[in-house]
């Protein structure tokens, strides 16, 4: 099953299970979804529950928050997370803070989901994910599933969660395939997944770069006999430090791999915590493989150079082992 189908299955099953779940966003209904995630849902659930909206990101986010405040469970789709910036006030100043500033009395069970990241030459204004911005905001949960199975299980968890969840899909993942368990299952937040066992170095990643890390790990095992452990964080807030630390106690070396920019990116947080909690376990500085600190360029070669590559990971692994 593809990642996109897994998401659609989660939406369908949750909408069937809970009549309070509804979807809103640009082109989610009649057009069947910009990335086809919501295909067929309008026909199945009607226009009260699959709401086509104007191009009004603040309006979409605010409307979802308001409906959540009185007990519905909206899933708001952003056409891409680059555009979520227009709704930043609604996400940061409203969704994230309402529970706290009203003393715990109003919950906001809302999911903001959509494609994040780049890689299809869409250039600077359509390729920005900024997960570290959201993870930085107390009150938001931030999740980034990398596989179809996690996409389905985590979207269900997100919809059932009583907090605002930033659910970042990667545009390059929609057509990827993987096994998806049958029936109703959920994947908890705050539990990282060891996607490959290894003893020499820990690769810490999330979202689409997990696939890159796995490729690099396979190649390193084959050609150099280096065994990488690959951790898929899956959820950035809450963050599972236990799994990271357990692995570092085993390998004593680590590389963080993400598409977020290097400067003030999410890897900086991971590394800061590692050195706070397990400084003595480290045999080498933890390195980051990340996107260049530039707006993502259009030209194919430049775009490729801006994003982390398999070779970048291999080089970093060799450096921490040197």
């Amino acid at each position, binding site marked *: 099953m593809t990642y996109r189908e897994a998401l659609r299955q989660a939406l369908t099953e949750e909408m069937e299970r809970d009549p309070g779940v509804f979807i809103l966003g640009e082109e989610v209904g009649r057009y069947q979804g910009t990335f086809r995630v919501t295909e067929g849902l309008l026909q199945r659930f009607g226009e009260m529950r699959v709401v086509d909206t104007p191009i009004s990101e603040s309006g979409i986010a605010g409307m979802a928050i308001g409906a959540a405040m009185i007990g*519905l469970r909206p899933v708001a789709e952003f056409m891409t997370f680059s555009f979520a910036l227009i709704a930043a006030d609604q996400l940061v100043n*409203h969704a994230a803070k309402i529970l706290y500033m009203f003393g715990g009395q109003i919950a906001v069970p809302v999911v903001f989901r959509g494609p994040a990241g780049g890689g299809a030459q869409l250039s600077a204004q359509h390729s920005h994910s900024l997960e570290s911005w959201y993870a930085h905001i107390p009150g938001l949960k931030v999740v980034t599933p990398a596989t179809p199975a996690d996409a389905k299980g985590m979207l269900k968890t997100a919809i059932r969660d009583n907090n605002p969840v930033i659910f970042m899909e990667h545009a390059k993942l929609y057509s990827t395939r993987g096994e998806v368990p049958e029936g109703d299952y959920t994947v908890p937040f705050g539990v990282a997944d060891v996607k490959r066992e290894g003893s020499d170095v820990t690769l810490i990643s999330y979202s689409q770069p997990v696939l890159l890390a796995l490729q690099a790990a396979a190649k390193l095992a084959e050609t150099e006999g280096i065994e990488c452990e690959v951790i898929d964080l899956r959820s950035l807030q809450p963050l599972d430090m236990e799994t990271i630390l357990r692995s570092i106690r085993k390998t004593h070396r680590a590389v963080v791999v993400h598409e977020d920019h290097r400067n003030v990116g999410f890897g900086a947080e991971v590394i800061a915590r590692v050195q706070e909690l397990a400084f003595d376990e480290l045999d080498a500085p933890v390195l980051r493989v990340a996107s260049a600190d530039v707006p993502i360029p259009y030209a194919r070669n430049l775009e490729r150079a801006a994003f982390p590559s398999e070779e970048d990971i291999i080089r970093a692994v060799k450096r921490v082992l040197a």
Partner: protein
Amino acid sequence: MKAEVPVKKALPGSLTPQRLVELYRTMLLIRHFEEQCAPAYRQGKMGGYMHVYIGQEAVATGFIAHMRDDDYMLCSYRDHGHALARGTDPRRVMAELFGRYTGVAKGKGGSMHLVDVERGFLGGYGIVGGMVPLAVGVGYGIRYRGTDQVCLCFFGDGAMNIGPVHEALNMAAIYKVPVVFICENNRYAMATPIEFASAVPNLAERAKQYGMPTKQIGGMDLLEVYREAEEIIRHVRTTPEPFFVEVLTYRFEGHGIADNPTNQALYRTKEEIEYWRQRDPIVNTARFLLESGFATESELLEWDTYAKQQALEAVAYADASPEPSIEELYRDVYTDMEVQEWR
């Protein structure tokens, strides 16, 4: 006995003399409550921004009077009057202003973020216009459930220049949500006059393009607000469709506590303030009650004394209330998750 005294002005719609007296007393409570705020603030018992509603009392009072128990409302940071008009315990409102645990939001919201979930008051918000999209969502939720509840959304004239408000008005109209958008035009956004900031200073006119009924009404006369609000809210409850109402009103005090008379002289004249003070909704309603024979001088005095007492009690209650414990710092960030203390 009182009914035999000739009534000089007819009461609008469903308004009974008793109800009018209740509403008058609500306005008195708001006025006295807020008059206690400035000294408490100066004594350092309150902090942050503090925006009073003095002069605008008839707006919240006249609209909220028509809310049913199961209706909703949201408003801006100028929210003391709305909370009190909705019947929230003044002691808990004052405690919130004092940042105490007994406040309506455990002292975590403060003056700008009052709330009363039990009464459908879904909060005051500090971002100009930020809650207007939320109101559309609340209205959508009402439609989703198929009930005949309504949602009132109060905001200022300044908010009409914020993009999300226009997204929200458009969306409200296309989804036909039962929301009353109440734009309290007090002529200024801080020091910026409406004529400067709005290309079309008639805001009802400006909102007309969104394909919903709009109206401009006066906001200094409680009877007028009450009559118009009754009609508008009935319309929205029964049609249902959104309604945009621009209420012409005025704040007698500065924008916030820091906006003192010297400061205000930079943007408005003493004469202008005086002109509007002549239209004080409390003084006018008192005069009406007297002239109509619905109240005597001594009753007016008695109610005034009572309202002041309530305000003083609220201050005493707040003053005696405990601060939130330090553990509260880490509570309510998530519904189900502890936040780690990283030190």
